């Protein structure tokens, strides 16, 4: 699904150059659930931005769903974001002016989908996250957990192949965090690839594979040697600890 090879990304300002990613290589297979962790400033968000075509990269190769995405036009990148990728952000990023229904509608409208199909998809995804009764509420009228569920509904409404989530539980208490994690697992179980950046070792442990990023490099990858070792509640090997 996602094949990155020796990706580098440099931020240049007048004064400084920041090598946010260097020789960053990672492969994520279709249907996988990968957790990415690492210290603050290590390049996790940069990795997600490059992976999600929100930003370009400076060197290396990146194939998304089999397609080489370097050198694509801005419009082509927008189209891939719209069709293949669902984003979940730490600060929810719902559009405050729009109610939940219209928020979920946003990516579908940019896909020029017909009204009745949009409506069906919006209702389905809101049902999946359990927000059908709140679809005419404004984001400000919902709790943080509900807002993040709405954001997940928006991310999956277009039926993307890949979900990229940047610390989606960072602003939530642990109960809500576990709810969100449960939702992401449910979506993954239906076949969608999920890449989750998280600080929370408990949540990371529930992923099939843990990536550790330090200083713009993949430091180590920990995968359960035996899939059976990964319990239904996310318990896994002690050595897969992330900190």
């Amino acid at each position, binding site marked *: 699904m996602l094949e990155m090879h020796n990706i580098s990304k440099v931020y240049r300002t007048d004064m400084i150059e920041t090598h946010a990613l260097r020789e960053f290589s990672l492969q994520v297979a279709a249907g996988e659930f990968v957790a990415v962790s690492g210290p603050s400033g290590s390049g996790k*968000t940069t990795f*997600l*931005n490059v992976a*999600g075509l*929100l*930003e370009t990269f400076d060197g290396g190769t990146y194939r998304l769903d089999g397609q080489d995405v370097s050198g694509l036009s*801005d*419009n082509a990148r*927008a*189209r891939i*974001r*719209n*069709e293949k990728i669902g*984003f979940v*952000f*730490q*600060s929810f*990023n719902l*559009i*405050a*002016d*729009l*109610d939940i229904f*219209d928020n979920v*509608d*946003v*990516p579908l409208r*940019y*896909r020029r989908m017909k*009204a009745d199909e949009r409506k069906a998809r919006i209702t389905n995804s809101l049902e999946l996250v359990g927000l059908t009764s709140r679809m005419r509420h404004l984001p400000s009228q919902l709790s943080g957990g509900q807002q993040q569920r709405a954001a997940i509904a*928006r991310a999956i409404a*277009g039926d993307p192949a890949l979900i990229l989530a*940047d610390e989606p539980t960072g602003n939530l208490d642990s109960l809500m965090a576990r709810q969100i994690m449960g939702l992401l697992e449910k979506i993954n179980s239906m076949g969608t690839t999920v890449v989750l950046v998280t600080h929370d070792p408990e949540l990371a442990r529930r992923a099939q594979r843990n990536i550790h990023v330090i200083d713009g490099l993949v430091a180590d990858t920990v995968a359960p040697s035996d899939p059976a070792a990964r319990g239904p509640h996310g318990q896994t090997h002690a050595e897969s600890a992330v900190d």
Partner: protein
Amino acid sequence: MALTSHPLLSALRRNPTGAVLIALQIGITLAILVNAAAIVTRAIQKMSRPSGVDTRDTFVMTMVGLSKNFNVYSTSSADLAYLRHLPGVAAASIVFGTPLTDNGSDTSVGRSPGSRGPTVTSALLPVDQQGLRTLDVALIAGRNFRGSEIRVPSAAHPDPRIGEVIVTQALAHALFAHQSALGQTIYVGSHTPSTIIGITRNFMGPQLGQHAYDTVLAPEIVTQYDMYDLLVRTRPGQRAAVFRAAKRHIGTADPNAVIGQAVTFAHAKRLLYSGLRDLAIFLSFLTLVMLALCCLGIFGLGTFNVATRTRQIGIRRALGARRRDIVALFLAENALVVAIGAIFGCLLALAIGQWLTDHDGVARLDPWYLLVGVAILALTSQLAAWQPARRAARIPPSVATRTI
């Protein structure tokens, strides 16, 4: 889905103050634009009407007697004789009141005596038998006055009856429509009848206004006010020299008379239209300023919206909006504001137009002006919104993950 829940409207509903103010501004601008355009167009139409006289080569001098010793008969005859022999003069004549000069008298003309039946307000232009030639106005029917028909009223015979008259084509039509006016009897400001002996092509009388082309010419040298007008037409290109020479000679020929006023027709025409022209310039300028302020307001609102919605734009870009989708969003929002403003502006424009019709007798506002006004405003406002929209489209999608 009902319009009230359209996403475009929800954004406006959440923050309506700026949009409402701009819509108001657009409405007021439209109302003024439309009515000003109608007034300016009418002014231009009026100013571009043909005068029908030779404005390039004609001038007029008003002579005023100053003392009891002033003999209007001898002085005017001497002036006329001098002018007719001056090289470069094509024709000269004694008249009382002249086209374009705002100097002349009005009378009412009807087909029945006194105020019985309808009358037409017309200019009354007393001329001698050289009058038409000097004005360079051709007859299209009938004949000119004969020398024997020119009356010179005196203290002994004040206000003699007018026997024969010549009328303009416009006046003939106003009185007799498609009937032939030649030989018909009309009543010129009195109960005594006159006969139409000639019809001229149209030329403008002393004043602007509805009856500018309705003129009746009477064979008369008016002298009872110790004043007369010397009308002079020169050969092409000779006006300046003749005007100078005539002023020098006639101004000093009789110590008992002075030149009250000496103007060329070209200058008189400019003066006559100066009020209209100033009004047209002022209204155009006012409209342009309002339009510019409107664009500034729209530009400001757009800039404000981009600044306050940076994150939202980034999110939309992350979710798959292309740059042109962002431009379209901002232009659509602007179009909505303009549409609301335009509806309000149309109503206001009609109300102002109605008020002008009721109070100043201005013609009813042509709906075409509304249509064109809305089109102009829509276009300029979209142009004003264009730059902020472009700026919005340049906001990168990574804003969605980078700003908290």
